[in-house]
């Protein structure tokens, strides 16, 4: 596609529910990142993939967070047993090579009640 596509754009979950957020990067982009942006803050790194390999997951806040990119294109960020502090915008970004600017999607806004 023309840009990074994320779905759903908005998700409301009850505390304790599991959620899955999807990212479709720009076709051919090798690198894919997930960021979490809380209200009034900058994006915080969660995890990074190069093709299907998850090279860095140091930013995942707990073992309730899990990300995958099995075929090196679409990625899914899964949050198990959601908590109120998980409420944030989850941004996906991709880039063609391993360096250079990131292209961001519009984000998925998660609200946990």
């Amino acid at each position, binding site marked *: 596609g023309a840009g*990074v596509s994320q779905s759903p754009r908005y998700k409301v979950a009850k505390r304790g529910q599991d959620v899955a957020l999807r990212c479709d990067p720009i076709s051919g982009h090798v690198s894919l990142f997930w960021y979490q942006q809380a209200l009034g803050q*900058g994006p915080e790194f969660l995890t990074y993939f190069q093709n299907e390999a998850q090279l860095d997951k140091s930013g995942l806040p707990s073992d309730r967070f899990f990300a995958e990119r099995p075929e090196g294109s679409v990625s899914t960020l899964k949050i198990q047993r959601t908590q109120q502090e998980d409420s944030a915008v989850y*941004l996906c970004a991709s880039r063609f090579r391993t360096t250079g600017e*990131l292209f961001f*999607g519009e984000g998925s806004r998660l609200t946990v009640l």
Partner: protein
Amino acid sequence: DQQVKQNSPSLSVQEGRISILNCDYTNSMFDYFLWYKKYPAEGPTFLISISSIKDKNEDGRFTVFLNKSAKHLSLHIVPSQPGDSAVYFCAGTTGANSKLTFGKGITLSVRP
């Protein structure tokens, strides 16, 4: 530990004047810096970048200055336009295969 600091949360300037957005960093390993612009309900979009081997990069109305010794960079927008009103994020990275580390952002308002 905040590695990228944007200490001024907001800035308001008159249309046509210069906007100067500041950013400080603590990680001396950063060798590449980027500025992103974000409108409400949209993802951040890339604006301009600078390598640590340079002290200035210019692209149209946008210029980024880097002072390595002070660990400081700034984004200049001249002349400012109402459409520039957005949140601006500064980010640093340590090169290949590396994530971007963002500041908290500065909200710029350009008054007509």
